[in-house]
């Protein structure tokens, strides 16, 4: 499926887990985004602040885990050690995460 993929982490074949983690990232990212809109007008709403912190932490952890297993989704998460694989992440038309 991902012929365009290179050596290195992109080869991690466990697609099901990868898709599951990716969809988790989408879900928590949406929750963070939507609560941000609410917090724009309710900056002191404690429940909303707790909600934001909860999902924002989950999101950061998931993004970090994704980076370790499959590679960075955003450049500010890239942590190359032996190889800079940012440019080798599969592109959407190569079956990369869509």
């Amino acid at each position: 499926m991902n012929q365009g993929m290179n050596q290195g982490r992109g080869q991690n074949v466990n697609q099901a887990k990868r898709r599951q983690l990716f969809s988790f990232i989408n879900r928590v990212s949406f929750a963070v985004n939507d609560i941000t809109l609410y917090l724009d007008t309710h900056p002191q709403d404690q429940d909303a602040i707790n909600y934001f912190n909860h999902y924002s932490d989950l999101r950061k952890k998931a993004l970090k885990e994704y980076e370790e297993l499959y590679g960075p989704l955003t450049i500010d998460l890239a942590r190359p050690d032996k190889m800079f694989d940012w440019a080798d992440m599969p592109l959407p038309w190569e079956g990369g995460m869509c």
Partner: protein
Amino acid sequence: MEQKDCENQVVAMAYVPWQNFYKVYEPEKALMVGTIFPELNKPFLGRRMAKR
């Protein structure tokens, strides 16, 4: 439009009740319907909602 025509007309009056953080959807459902707030979940059902 002639200025004198709308001299004493009220332009608009919005009714925007203050939203409170009460109940929210689980992230999975929120992503599907497009909001975490049930009170903002107003899907278009394809026809007028007039209840006769």
